[in-house]
């Protein structure tokens, strides 16, 4: 039997992404969109001006977190959930490689995504937010040792396989890669202590999309943090 040709009808409007250049989470979604060739309608949320707490924004996302995706009438927050959604809907043949359906591989990718959400990114956030919002003068020893420990976890993951979740490049690399880029403004990765992580990160840095979003965004974040540390120390 001959198959009927499939006609895909896409909404002409590109999905809207509320982002901030210095947000590693927003940058993971932008990198993914770049990789799958999806155009996003970008809207910047000015964090310092508290736009993420504005009524318009919290109506979309009560949590006030960045990024938020608006795809037609569907609104979704959390970069990890957004990546999985965008891949399933717009990823085409890239979807399988970046978020494998094999139960073991998928579980391994999810494990890293949840590690990023509940442990790794939090160790960046507990430095960045109090610096910008609460006048913190510098990261504490505990902040730095927690980041060191997190790097050592990455080293364990990367001693088992080529990429962070398995031997293939997946969305887990985008999440952890963007967070790692963001961390560099707080504590640089030491190539001697974490050789595999350093090698993995250097490999990511060679990718144009990683330069364009993660590295560029991390530089913006690092600059902001330094500015506030200087300012907060003078007050």
């Amino acid at each position: 039997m001959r198959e009927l040709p499939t006609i895909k009808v896409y909404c002409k409007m590109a999905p809207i992404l509320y982002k901030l250049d210095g947000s590693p989470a927003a940058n993971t979604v932008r990198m993914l969109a770049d990789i799958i060739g999806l155009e996003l309608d970008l809207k910047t949320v000015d964090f310092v001006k508290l736009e993420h707490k504005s009524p318009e924004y919290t109506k979309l996302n009560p949590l006030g977190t960045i990024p938020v995706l608006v795809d037609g009438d569907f609104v979704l927050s959390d970069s990890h959930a957004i990546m999985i959604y965008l891949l399933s809907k717009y990823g085409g043949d890239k979807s399988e490689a970046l978020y494998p359906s094999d139960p073991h591989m998928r579980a391994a990718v999810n494990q890293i995504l949840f590690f990023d959400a509940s442990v790794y990114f939090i160790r960046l956030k507990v430095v960045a937010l109090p610096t910008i919002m609460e006048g913190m003068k510098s990261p504490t020893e505990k902040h730095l040792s927690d980041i060191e420990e997190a790097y050592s976890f990455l080293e364990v993951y990367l001693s088992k396989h080529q990429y962070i979740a398995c031997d293939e490049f997946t969305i887990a690399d985008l999440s952890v890669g963007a967070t790692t880029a963001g961390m560099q403004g707080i504590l640089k990765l030491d190539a001697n202590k974490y050789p595999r992580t350093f090698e993995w990160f250097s490999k990511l840095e060679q990718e144009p999309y990683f330069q364009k979003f993660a590295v560029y965004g991390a530089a913006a974040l690092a600059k902001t943090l330094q500015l506030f540390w200087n300012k907060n120390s003078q007050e």
Partner: protein
Amino acid sequence: MSNLKDIQAPKLYHFNVSGPSRGALFAARVIGVPVEIEVINLFKKEQLNESFLKINPQHCLPTLDDDGFIIWESRAIACYLADKYGKDDQFYPKDLKKRALVNQRLFFDSSSLYVKIRAICLPILYFGVKEISQPLRDDLNTTLGFLETFLSDSEWVAGDSPTIADTSTYASLSSILAVGWDISSFPNIQRWVKQCSELPGAAENDEGAKAFGDAIKNNLK
């Protein structure tokens, strides 16, 4: 034909005082997959034993061993068990938008709700802190306000039927409820807590949460 008796139940390295560990077990209970439990006593630092470090060098609980496949992070375990052993997709829907919502809530629990509870409780359990500071209190109440919003829009955390987002969130929340947290200003959370208590595995979860709450209360002034 495979003989059911030949199929080894997945093994869960578990400690019922740990919220995430209860979250994975609670998910297994609602999904209906039998698991073999091996207790790793965190109070005795058994997670640092050589034998467990070989299984999970990140030495966190829960950890699942499914016929040699090792995985940790409670919510990733819940997703895995639901996809692999669920009779249908009720607890982790396959529909694109429904699954996206469940995922969003799982990430909300892991990156926000659980993190705020951890920020309050870990220093009390392990670092000699004897009271809960006002900023940490406010921070958790703000997050509970978000959960209240979710639950005012739908019956369950991610829609109109229970999912692994509920079991995960409930495992987190029940820990702080056992400490005696006041949720009287969150009527929808109160309603949902009652709903959750009727799910299979809830009583078992509450037993562990009580042990957690007692340990915290014991260290408070």
